[in-house]
């Protein structure tokens, strides 16, 4: 179905890669959800991971997540760094006993035969202090390239999680550069005849310019306060998902301000603490609300789930 690019790698455009991964994880029983519509810095922050990782209910999901990292914006000029990149995100709770083997099969689905490559699990522990999330795991190397972040969540929303979830985050651009044997993301083929740059170069430039030169600091500071206030108001009504949306807005606003150099060293900890507080309260509220609903996904109340 696919043509070899170099040596033993099959050429896939980005769309095909995404389809292969969706197909693979769908066959593993994952719910294929869609990218979430609020700005976020990583696929982990999609509520389908952040919230669903909490509590006792089993959960399997996979999705593409466009992730915004304002500080990494490079005006569309850097071959590797982007304001917005794409992650393919998988979360599995509880963790299948053979999760590493399943994951390695997903690489085969991308045409990466382990016998023809060097695949290794190299220690890399992940944390996101702003959202009180941390886990242990590896970055998976394919011939020295970080193909995936492989993490066993230990804490989410500043709470120990039980059962533990495993999160797999594939860096799609990086994988595509490898598979398509390109040196510059903008040269990647999204589909036949449409390059990554055709789709994303203009937004990359404009977002970078906006972030570093144009954004209105004062207004963003006000937004942060307002989003925080609204998140708290929603929380008082036990509306977890709306509250979480505003926590994400706070986080993105903070990232914009930070990239703009508007947040001094001494203020930083304070802002991060405010988002962490929100996320902690939201995490607790989520579990409470799920409990009120009787943990609906916990179909086998004996505790074991398929």
């Amino acid at each position, binding site marked *: 179905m696919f043509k070899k690019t170099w040596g033993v790698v099959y050429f896939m455009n980005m769309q095909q890669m995404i389809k292969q991964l969706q197909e693979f994880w769908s066959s593993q029983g994952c719910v294929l959800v869609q990218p979430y519509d609020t700005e976020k810095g990583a696929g982990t922050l999609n509520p389908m991971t952040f919230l669903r990782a909490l509590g006792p209910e089993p959960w399997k999901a996979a999705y593409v997540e466009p992730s915004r990292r304002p500080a990494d914006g490079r005006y569309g000029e850097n071959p590797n760094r982007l304001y917005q990149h794409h992650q393919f995100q998988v979360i599995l709770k509880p*963790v299948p006993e053979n999760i590493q083997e399943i994951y390695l099969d997903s690489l085969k689905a991308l045409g990466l035969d382990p016998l023809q490559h060097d*695949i290794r*699990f190299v220690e890399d522990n992940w944390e996101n202090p702003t959202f009180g999330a941390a886990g242990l795991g*590896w970055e998976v190397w394919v011939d020295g390239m970080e193909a995936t972040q492989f993490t*066993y969540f230990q804490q989410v929303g500043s709470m120990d999680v039980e059962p533990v979830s495993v999160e797999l985050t594939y860096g799609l651009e990086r994988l595509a550069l490898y598979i398509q044997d390109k040196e510059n993301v903008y040269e990647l083929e999204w589909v036949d005849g449409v390059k990554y740059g055709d789709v994303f170069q203009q937004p990359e430039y404009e977002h970078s310019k906006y972030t570093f030169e144009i954004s209105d600091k004062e207004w963003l500071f006000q937004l942060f306060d307002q989003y925080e206030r609204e998140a708290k108001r929603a929380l008082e009504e036990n509306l977890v998902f709306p509250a979480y949306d505003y926590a994400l807005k706070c986080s993105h606003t903070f990232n914009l301000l930070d990239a703009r150099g508007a947040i001094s060293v001494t203020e930083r900890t304070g802002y991060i603490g405010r988002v962490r507080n929100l996320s902690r309260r939201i995490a607790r509220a989520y579990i409470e609300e799920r409990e009120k609903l009787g943990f609906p996904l916990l179909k086998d109340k004996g505790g074991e789930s398929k």
Partner: protein
Amino acid sequence: MSERDLLLEIGCEEVPARFIDGAVQQLGDKLSAWLTENRIQHGAVKTYATPRRLTVLIHAVAEKQADKEEEVRGPAARIAKTPDGGWSKAAEGFARKNGLTVDQLTLKEVKGETYVFAQLHQPGEETVAQLLKGLPEVISSLHFPKTMRWNDRTRFIRPVRWLVCLFGEEVVPVEWAGLKAGNLTRGHRFLGQEIALTTPERYVEDLRGQYVLADVEERRNLILSQLRQLEETHNWKIPVDKGLLDEVTHLVEYPTAFYGTFSAEYLAVPREVLITTMREHQRYFPVEDRSGQLLPFFVAVRNGDSNGLENVAKGNEKVLRARLADARFFYDEDLKLPIEEANAKLANIVYQEELGSVGDRIGRIGEVARILAEQGGLPVDRSKLDRAAAICKFDLATQMVGEFPELEGIMGSHYALAHGEDAEVAKAIHEHYLPRFAGDDVPQHLLGGLIGLADKMDAIAASFGIGIQPTGSQDPYGLRRKAAGIVQILLSPSFQSLSLTALIEAAVDQLAQAGLLKVERLEVERDLLQFFALRLKAVMQEMEIRYDVIEAVLGGELSYPAFIIRKAQVLMDQLDRDAFKLEVEGFTRVANLAAKADDTAVTADLFADPAEHSLYEALNRAKTEWERAKENDDPGALYHALMIMVPEIHQYFDQVMVMVDDETVRKNRLALLREITSLTSAFAAFEHVVFPS
């Protein structure tokens, strides 16, 4: 007794390389200690480890525990025996409690009293039964700096997926973390298969057949020989960083070294940057030509065989290209950043919570370095010192150091030279971080040394000033290493004229002026002095200076570490002299009485006994000698100066009663002793010196 080999393999998802050696060492130690504790005889302990397994093989483990012979003491015979010589109720009770009958009890005398004893014989149980009970505890007792959960509450370094436990050919079905041990182990992730192990002895060979080299040494040596092979084939030199070799050894089960290349244009970037990029990001070994020039090649070690090796090399080259492009981008960008601009950014880099920014430190460091240079009379160019101190941290604001913190100082030197700074100034930016670890070089030039001393002392004193001191194994800011660095510098020839106490005082002074002391100033200085005394003690212990001699010299004046060590060596030389004991006794006796003295000055007119006069004269002669010795910086002569007084001291104590009723006379006598002690204690606290009785 019959015995078998015991094998325990803990099959894991990839254990972080840095924890493997420690983990498997613990496993061996703890299992062997557990066997001993449970009276199970055993032979040699051998450990094996790969990223996916922690294994211990213990030879010749007894099949049964040794019997346990125990003697339990019961009541005294006068209570255990009835007057007619029969056994009392108490004796019967004691026997019953120990599962014996009274006729099995024995009598024995202990310290003049006769007691009844029960001789207990507990036959040893089967080792297998003990293992089933004990091994789970042994595994659970392994300690890791970081642990995780993956299914239930069990914690381990990474998820455990299988267990093997063989006692000879017998499977011991130990249960732990929801797993039951069997004889099935897993081979190399891609090249091997799951196989059934037959006996512990065949462990290494059976795994080798599945592309797993379980023996750590064998793997390390194989990698080394593959590197040597590449060196020979290509006429290269591959410098092997030991830490990197250890890490790579623990990233693979079946190593195959290969090389790749990168564009020679990157060689324009400083070699430290290239080497660090390759090592930190990719775990590659750099390649040099025979003269030590870096070549545009790298060597990496793959976890697998040579199948598809050209793809692996090509893939790694591609990854490295992006990394080097990044590094060169940082380098080029950094070069565009004027030093003053970088320096201004330091105000935004937090040094430590409560202690302000890195920028805040610069002024303090410069001031302390200047004070130190003046006090030590060091021939430094003042304007260069000022400049070097002012820009010693500017590279912390560069992108390269942001990416690779370990290049701090090194990049600063490169960039400073590129910006046309004076060569000595540029060198000082690098040197002031030295020594970075025990055994590292110390600064070779005065500028780097002075700034380094000031920088390190500011860090330590600032931390002490807010009440943060290293305790036990806790030293998050590496203050012990910094203090050891200061001692190392002060011991090196160019810096021996600098005073430790003056350095402490100057640093604390700056912090006080900046309002950064939360702890009382005198307390900070006292704690700092103690902290440094401990570092100095460690240095002297390493030199095999006797413990009591170390205590003695550390009880003296602490300003000049090199001088303290030389004094300790003088005392070590005295230990063989018979007269030394007499000298120490004299000084100690004087010191003990002198402790009772107040601040009355000595008045020669009040001396009544000729021995007082002669001691006073001896003291004055000693002082003259002392001053001369001091000028000559000669600790041996200092000690000789003290020796002058010894005959007079003993004569004095033979003839003079110090604690007389007449207050004026008594105070005058104590004052004389106090003066002597102020001289001897400047050398050492002699009372610590111990003589075998």
